């Protein structure tokens, strides 16, 4: 995979503008009424260019899968605009979507439930040909066996059932099905999260090879920032339905601007004991607030160690302080930027809760509590975002 994909190269394979997907919250009882909305995706914009991978990361329930599904219109978005390869697909009927769908595909997290257990591998991988009425030159079986070979499955296993394959092999089946029609882009929803690391690495390498070969664009949804780094050219960090930061992978991992990105990166332990013991930790307290009652102002302010008064009342816009580096924060962490003037003076480096980045080091449970006491959830607030239906 080349590192040099220019974010401005030609027509994006996928362009998403101000996407919103809200789910109604219904009261319990015999005659349920709509009593609110879960803003699962709340104003998300991005492009993915041919041959490029955009990683989409964030904590459970932040709206990653809903974004991925809305883009393919597997869920109907509430508002926004979606373009495949320059064509606006937002208003298309499901019939009009059929030929357009050929350009797009999806790979799912769960290699166990994503495949119909009663269909043979051959039937599963050839399904897109049947749906789209495509007749590959050498016949369907030959095309499927070629695909199987390409993704590292034994073509002789054409007539076997999913149960006879391991998790990693099933994920390969899902990948073969996804690339069958040579789509322009694929939404990969946690494609390796259910796999062991040694198998994860095989599947990540396969995805990269297929991308090089066919120039596919990936929207790669995952909660694991190390996995995302391994495959992405650019990365978007989501929190409560909104994009907090979007940057090239180099910028995001080496020069993160958003406090939430800092917190996420510092929370991931690195597999190197000496390095790990020297790292600074930013402990965030509590869990995601309910997306049915998101905090006012900056949605992250209830957990943010940089928060000031303005954060609770004014929502920060997504700005681009340096080319290609987008951030939504009143007080981004500028230590790495060297051009502080762009965003004005920098009051944010004196954190509210008495801990500097380093001071919030591991061990200070009091700090956890101090930051956490006011994360906006009372005993009666339903704080569990609820089961995420596609996990």
């Amino acid at each position, binding site marked *: 995979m080349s590192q040099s994909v220019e974010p401005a190269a030609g027509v994006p394979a996928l362009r998403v503008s101000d996407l919103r997907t809200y789910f109604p919250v219904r009261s319990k009882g015999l005659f349920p009424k709509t009593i609110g909305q879960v803003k699962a995706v709340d104003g998300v914009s991005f492009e993915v260019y041919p041959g490029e991978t955009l990683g989409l990361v964030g904590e459970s329930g932040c709206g990653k899968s809903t974004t991925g599904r809305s883009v393919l219109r597997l869920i109907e978005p509430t508002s926004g605009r979606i373009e495949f390869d320059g064509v606006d697909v937002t208003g298309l009927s499901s019939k009009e979507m059929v030929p357009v769908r050929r350009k797009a595909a999806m790979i799912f997290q769960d290699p166990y439930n994503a495949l119909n257990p009663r269909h043979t591998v051959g039937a599963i991988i050839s399904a897109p040909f049947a749906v789209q009425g495509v007749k590959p030159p050498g016949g369907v079986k030959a095309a499927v066996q070629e695909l199987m070979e390409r993704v590292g499955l034994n073509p002789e296993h054409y007539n076997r059932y999913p149960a006879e394959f391991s998790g990693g092999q099933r994920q390969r089946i899902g990948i073969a099905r996804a690339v069958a029609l040579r789509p322009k882009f694929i939404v990969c929803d946690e494609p390796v999260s259910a796999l062991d*690391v*040694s198998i994860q*690495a095989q599947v990540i*390498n396969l995805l990269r090879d297929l991308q090089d070969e066919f120039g596919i664009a990936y929207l790669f949804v995952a909660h694991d920032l*190390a996995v995302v780094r391994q495959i992405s050219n650019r990365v978007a960090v989501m929190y409560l339905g909104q994009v907090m930061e979007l940057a090239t992978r180099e910028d995001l991992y080496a020069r993160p601007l958003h406090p939430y990105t800092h917190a*996420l990166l510092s929370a991931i332990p690195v*597999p190197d004991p000496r*390095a*790990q013991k020297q790292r600074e930790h930013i402990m965030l307290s509590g869990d*995601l607030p309910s997306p049915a009652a998101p905090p006012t102002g900056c949605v992250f302010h209830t957990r943010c160690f940089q928060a000031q008064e303005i954060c609770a009342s004014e929502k920060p816009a997504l700005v681009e302080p340096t080319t290609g580096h987008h951030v939504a924060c009143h007080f981004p962490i500028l230590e790495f930027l060297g051009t502080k003037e762009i965003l004005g003076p920098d009051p944010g480096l004196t954190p509210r809760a008495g801990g500097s980045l380093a001071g919030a080091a591991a061990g200070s449970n009091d700090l956890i509590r101090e930051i956490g006491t006011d994360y906006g959830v009372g005993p009666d607030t339903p704080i569990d975002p609820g089961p995420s239906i596609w996990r």
Partner: protein
Amino acid sequence: MTEYSNLRRAFLEVSDLSVQFPTEDGIVRAVDGVSFSIERGQTLAIVGESGSGKSVTAQAVMGLINKRNADVSGQVIFDGEDLVAMSDEDLRKLRGNKMSMIFQDPMSSLHPFYRIGDQLTEAINAHQKVSKTDARDRAIEMLHKVGIPLPAKRFDDYPHQFSGGMRQRVMIAMALINSPSLLIADEPTTALDVTVQAQIIELISQLQREFDTAVILITHDLGIVADVADEVAVMYGARVVEHGAVDDIFYHPQMPYTLGLLASVPRLTQVRSDRLDPIPGNPPSPLRLPTGCVFQPRCVYQDEVVGDLCRTQRPDLESVGPGHEVRCHLPAAKRQAAAEVALAALGRSSS
């Protein structure tokens, strides 16, 4: 440690533990001759792929394997007593008291219909006589310790009113409420987000220091291992294939599976080659473990062993340094060379 510690038994000593499940498809060898030991205040991490026998090992140590559907053999000497030979009733007195366990899925051990507080006080009352108010105070204090805001108020909540991370914290409160001297945490954070995971891991370490608990931490996350483990046992195909101090495993690994595992882990920082170097193939079925080395079908180094040893002979766990043991037929020099190559790819040297 005392100077005659060699003669003394370790606080927990597991030797030659095997667990087999007879099933319709044949005998599942879930754990095959596993040995390790651990002292109070220490953390032993058990790592390995799913199905390698980590959870069954933990359950066997806790005496949670139903002996009617399984063959358990070997010894688990806990503070001088053999748990394998112990009656179920005696085991029940120990569990939740002197030893306890945190499970991966908090809902599986919190009862959905009982209030959080009642479940905690019951855990206290099951093992000691305390007054109702004392038990309540203790439960609230424990909830406070694990970072539940407004613990007195939340005492009367039901589990579904808590988020996943909070339930996991309640589980920890429950596991530690009787100050156990042995805690087994089986993938305690696998279902959680990284920010919550960081809190939970820190919390376990803190309470471990407070109660001088021996902790066995089961995980597949090598980052967590690097963070908290003193010692590491690497399991593969029902066996421990390498065992040593945390630095041995990360900076002087010897067993080809350990090398492959380290090379497969995606990293947050730049390394020499940013392409991952996966282990080929798939882990073995516990119904058909290879006769020789369990890793042989996937091992790229087997050709460097003379003859057919890797395929036919089960390698022994051999000492390669103080407290460092490896199960592999490769001659020392070749193991060393393999390790150098793997570490160089990670941008690390073995010195």
